[in-house]
C-alpha cells in the first residue's frame, strides 16, 4: 500500500480494496503492515462474504499479474489459509495460461491438506500439458509428498507427472538444477548430487541459479553421510565460499577435509587431467568412520577420564513391547534392586510417557522422571559433529548426560544405543563401557542402512579401546558378530544369557489352564508365541502343523501373537480348511496361561539371537522343538528338554513334532527337566550373578552345565 492510502476500517472494507492492489504497478505494492492486515482479514472474514468479496474484487479489476503473484507469495509467506487459497483459485481462473498461479494453488492446497482437490488440479494441469519447470517440479513434489503423507495416488498419475516433468526440464536452461531437485525429492541423493554438480559446471557465471545449484547440492551432501563420495561438490562449495544452511556441518566437513589431508601437496597427482582433484584422497572419508577415527586417533590422546561415581548408566532403544525391551526393563529392575550401585540411571533413544515406547515402564520399576530421553535437540560440537546428523545429536545428548552422571559403568543395549553410548562414553572419559547385543548381525534389523554399513568399521575401532567390552545373548550371536566384523572372538566377547523372572501369579497347572480356555484335557497341543513376522516364518509353521494334523488329526494348534503376517496366516489356515483345529488368540498379556496348555512348543525362525520364547516355554515346563536359528540350540538340553529340527522344511519339522508328541515317556521326562533347566541357566538369579561377574571383571560368565 502506498503511504497515501487511507487506513482500513474492517476486514470487509479491507478486502474491497483488493482490486486496487491487484491493479497496482510494481512500485506501489502494499507494505508489510498492509500485508499482515490482509492476511488477518482473510483469516477473520466470514467464508461466504469472503468468496463474494474476492470474486467481485478480482472480476472488477484490471489485474496486474505480477502484482497478484506478489500478493499471493506474501500471503503464503505469512501462512496458508483457506482465504488465501480462494484468492489463488480465483486468480488462477483469471490467468489460466500463467502457471505461476497454478504453482501457488498447488502450494496452498498441499499445505492445507486438500489432497483430493490437489490431485484434481494436477490432473487438469497434466491434461493441459505442463509448460514450466517450476510447476512441473511442484507437481511431482506435491505427488511425492502426498504419498509420503499416506495419500493414495495412482501410478498412472505419478508416471504422467514424471514424464511431463522430464520433458519440460529437458528444454530448460537450468535442466540439471531441476533434475538435482527432483532426485533430491526422490531421496535419490547420489544421482541428485551429480545433477547439482553438472548444473554448477554447465551454467554460465551470470546465471543466478549457478550458485543456487551449488548451495543446494552442498547442503544435500552435508546432510548426508558420504562426504568422501560427495567431496567434488563439497570442495567446489568450499572454493566458491557458498554459505550453508547447516553451518555446523559445514565446519565439521571442513575439519574432516583437513584431517584427511586437504592441505597436503599432492604434486602432479592433484591435477591429473580428467580426474577430480583430491577425490581419491577423500574417497574413504565417510561418517561415522571418520568420526571414530578422529575420536580414537586424535581426541582421546589428550582426553582425561573423569573421576567416576558409583553409578550404572543403562542405554536402551525404548521400553516398547518387544522381547529385548522386556529383558532390558527386567534387567534395570533387577540391577536397581540388587543394590550393587549407589544409583542406576536409564537413557533411551525413544521414550515418551504413555506412548508405545513406554510399554514396559511399569515392569522396569522406573518412574518416568528417572528416564532421560535422548531426543537429540541440541547442536553437537566437534568432534561429535562429524557423526551423521541424527546419530550425532543423540551422541551429544548422551555425552552431556554421562558428564553429568559420571557413571563407573555404561551398559548399552544393542547396536545403535551401543554406538551412541560407546562414542559418548569414550569422549566423556567413562572407564568401562559394555555393549550388549541381542540378535544375530543386525543388517536387516536396523532402519538406518548407512549406519549399519559402517558398524563393522566402528566396532573394530571400538574394540581397540580397553574401556570397551561386548556382551552377547548367545554364543551364536557372538560368533556371528565376530564374523561380520572380520575379527577373532576375543576375551572382550562375553556371553551373557538373558534372565527371566517367574511370571506374576506363577505358571498355572496344565489341566486348569486348558479348562480356562475350554480346551480338551487330553488333546495333544502344539503351540508357539511370536510376532507374525517374516523372520519367524509363520507360514512354515502352519505348513508343518498341517502335516502334523495329517498324522495326528486330533491335535490342536495355538499360535499366540500378532504382526504383519497375522491375517495372511489366518487366511492360509482357512484355505487349508484347518480353522477348527487352529487358535489365533492374538497378542495376549497372559502368555504363561497359554504356555501351560502346550505339549510342545515349536519355533520355525530363520534368525534368532536367543529366542526368549523357547526359554519361557521351558520355564512353563513345555519341551521345545526349533529350527537351527542363531542361539535357539543354546536354550535347551539337546534331546532332553528340546530337539533341533535337522532342516527347516515343513516335512522335517512335522516329523520331529510328531515324534515328540507321540513319545509320552520323553515328553514326561522333558516336562520334568525343562523347568529346572530354564531356572538354573536362564533364571534372573543366574543372570544377575553372571552380570555382576562381568561388571566386576570376574571370570567370564558360567557355561551351562549341560
Amino acid at each position, binding site marked *: 500500500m502506498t503511504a497515501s492510502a487511507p487506513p482500513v476500517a474492517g476486514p470487509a472494507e479491507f478486502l474491497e480494496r483488493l482490486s486496487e492492489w491487484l491493479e497496482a504497478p510494481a512500485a506501489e505494492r502494499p507494505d508489510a503492515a498492509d500485508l499482515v492486515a490482509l492476511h488477518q482479514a482473510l483469516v477473520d472474514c466470514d467464508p461466504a462474504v469472503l468468496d463474494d468479496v474476492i470474486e467481485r474484487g478480482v472480476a472488477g479489476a484490471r489485474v496486474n499479474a505480477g502484482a497478484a503473484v506478489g500478493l499471493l507469495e506474501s500471503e503464503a509467506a505469512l501462512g496458508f489459509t483457506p482465504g488465501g487459497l480462494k484468492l489463488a483459485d480465483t486468480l488462477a481462473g483469471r490467468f489460466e495460461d500463467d502457471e505461476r498461479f497454478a504453482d501457488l494453488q498447488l502450494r496452498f492446497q498441499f499445505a492445507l491438506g486438500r489432497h483430493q482437490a490437489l490431485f484434481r488440479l494436477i490432473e487438469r494441469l497434466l491434461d493441459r500439458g505442463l509448460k514450466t519447470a517450476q510447476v512441473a517440479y511442484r507437481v511431482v513434489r506435491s505427488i511425492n509428498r502426498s504419498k509420503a503423507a499416506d495419500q493414495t495416488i495412482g501410478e498412472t498419475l505419478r*508416471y504422467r507427472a514424471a514424464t511431463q516433468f522430464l520433458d519440460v526440464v529437458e528444454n530448460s536452461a537450468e535442466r540439471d538444477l531441476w533434475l538435482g531437485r527432483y532426485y533430491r525429492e526422490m531421496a535419490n541423493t547420489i544421482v541428485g548430487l551429480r545433477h547439482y554438480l553438472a548444473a554448477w559446471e554447465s551454467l554460465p557465471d551470470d546465471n543466478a541459479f549457478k550458485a543456487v545449484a551449488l548451495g543446494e547440492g552442498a547442503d544435500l551432501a552435508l546432510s548426508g553421510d558420504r562426504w568422501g563420495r560427495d567431496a567434488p561438490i563439497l570442495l567446489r562449495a568450499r572454493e566458491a565460499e557458498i554459505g550453508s544452511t547447516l553451518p555446523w556441518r559445514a565446519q565439521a566437513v571442513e575439519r574432516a577435509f583437513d584431517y584427511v589431508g586437504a592441505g597436503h601437496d599432492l604434486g602432479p597427482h592433484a591435477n591429473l587431467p580428467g580426474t577430480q582433484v583430491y577425490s581419491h584422497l577423500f574417497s574413504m572419508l565417510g561418517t561415522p568412520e571418520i568420526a571414530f577415527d578422529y575420536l580414537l586417533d586424535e581426541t582421546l590422546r589428550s582426553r582425561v577420564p573423569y573421576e567416576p561415581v558409583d553409578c550404572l548408566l543403562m542405554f536402551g532403544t525404548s521400553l516398547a513391547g518387544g522381547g529385548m525391551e522386556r529383558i532390558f526393563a527386567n534387567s534395570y529392575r533387577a540391577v536397581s534392586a540388587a543394590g550393587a550401585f549407589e544409583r542406576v540411571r536409564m537413557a533411551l533413544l525413544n521414550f515418551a510417557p504413555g506412548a508405545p515406547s513406554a510399554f514396559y515402564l511399569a515392569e522396569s520399576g522406573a518412574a518416568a522422571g528417572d528416564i532421560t530421553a535422548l531426543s537429540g535437540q541440541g547442536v553437537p560440537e566437534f568432534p561429535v559433529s562429524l557423526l551423521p546428523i541424527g546419530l550425532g545429536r543423540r551422541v551429544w545428548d548422551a555425552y552431556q548426560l554421562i558428564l553429568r552422571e559420571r557413571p563407573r559403568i555404561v551398559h548399552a543395549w544393542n547396536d545403535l544405543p551401543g554406538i551412541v553410548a560407546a562414542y559418548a562414553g569414550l569422549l566423556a572419559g567413562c572407564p568401562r563401557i559394555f555393549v550388549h547385543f541381542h540378535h544375530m548381525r543386525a543388517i536387516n534389523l536396523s532402519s538406518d542402512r548407512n549406519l549399519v554399513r559402517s558398524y563393522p568399521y566402528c566396532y573394530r575401532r571400538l574394540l581397540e579401546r580397553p574401556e570397551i567390552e561386548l556382551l552377547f545373548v548367545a554364543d551364536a550371536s557372538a560368533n556371528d558378530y565376530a564374523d561380520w566384523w572380520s575379527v577373532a572372538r576375543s576375551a572382550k566377547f562375553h556371553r551373557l544369557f538373558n534372565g527371566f523372572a517367574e511370571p506374576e501369579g506363577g505358571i498355572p497347572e496344565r489341566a486348569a489352564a486348558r479348562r480356562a480356555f475350554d480346551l480338551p484335557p487330553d488333546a495333544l497341543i502344539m503351540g508357539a508365541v511370536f510376532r507374525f513376522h517374516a523372520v519367524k516364518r509363520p507360514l512354515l509353521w502352519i505348513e508343518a502343523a498341517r502335516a502334523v494334523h495329517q498324522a495326528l488329526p486330533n491335535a490342536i494348534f495355538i499360535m499366540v501373537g500378532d504382526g504383519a503376517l497375522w491375517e495372511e496366516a489366518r487366511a492360509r489356515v482357512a484355505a487349508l480348511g484347518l480353522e477348527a483345529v487352529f487358535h489365533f488368540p492374538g497378542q495376549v498379556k497372559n502368555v504363561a496361561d497359554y504356555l501351560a496348555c502346550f505339549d510342545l512348543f515349536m519355533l520355525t525362525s530363520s534368525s534368532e539371537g536367543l529366542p526368549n520364547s523357547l526359554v519361557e516355554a521351558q520355564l512353563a515346563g513345555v519341551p521345545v522343538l526349533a529350527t537351527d536359528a542363531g542361539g535357539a540350540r543354546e536354550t535347551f538340553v539337546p534331546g532332553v528338554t528340546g530337539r533341533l529340527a535337522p532342516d527347516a522344511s515343513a516335512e522335517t519339522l512335522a516329523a520331529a513334532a510328531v515324534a515328540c508328541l507321540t513319545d509320552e515317556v520323553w515328553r514326561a521326562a522333558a516336562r520334568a527337566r525343562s523347568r529346572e533347566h530354564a531356572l538354573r541357566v536362564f533364571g534372573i538369579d543366574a543372570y544377575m550373578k553372571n552380570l555382576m561377574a562381568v561388571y566386576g571383571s570376574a571370570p567370564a560368565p558360567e557355561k551351562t552345565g549341560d
Partner: protein
Amino acid sequence: MNAGVDPVLLNLRTPVVDAVCATVGGQWFEAADLWFEVYRDPRFRLLAAQCGAEASLYAGLLDLAEYFYLGLGDLAATPDFVIALKEKNAPIRSARMAYYGRGRDGHAKGPDAGAELMRLHFYREAVRRFLVLAPAQRDSPPTLVMLARAYAMLGAHASLIALHETRGEVLEGADLTPMVERARRLLARQSDPPIKNMQRFQQQHPAGPLFTTSVEDAAPPPAAGP
C-alpha cells in the same frame, strides 16, 4: 526423452540405471555405492544383492559385501559369478582378520604400509597412503605401479589413464598396457547412452536376465492420454 532412457527407470527412487552403467563400465567403487542404494527397493533387491556383492568384492569393500550376502539368502542358490568371487576373496578376508587382530601397532609402517594395504585389497586406503607419501617415495616406480593397480581395481579409469599418460616414463618398466587399454575401453562406455549400457548388461552380465524381468515387473501401468 531424457537421455534416451524410459522415465519409468529415471523416475525410480533408486539409481538402478546408474548402477547398471557403473557395473558395465567396471567402476567398481562407484557401482558398490550405487547398488547399495538400489538394494533398498524390494523390486530390485535380488539384482542389487548379487551385483552389489560383485562390485564390493572387486573394489575390496569386503564389509559391504557381507551386507549384500544377506540379500542373497532369498535366492534358491547363490549365482556362480558371486560364488567364484567370494571364494577368490576368502583368503583376503582371512588375512584381514589377522591384520585386525594385530592391532594398529602390528601394521606395516612407512613405505611398506601401502603395499600391505594392497595385499589386503584395501585399495582406497592404499591410494590415500600413496598420495600422502613424501614426493620421492610417492613418485617412485614401485609406488606408482601399485597406485595404478589400485585405480584399476576401484574402477577409477580416468585416473589410471591420466597417471599412465603423465608418468609413462616411470611406469615403462611395468607392462601396464593391457590394464590401461582396458581402462580406456571401459571409460569410453561412460560416454555411451545409458540405454546402450543397459543392453550390454542385459546381454553380457550373468544378472542380465534378472535385470530384464525386474524392469518389466517394475513398469507402471500404461500412461493414460489427455
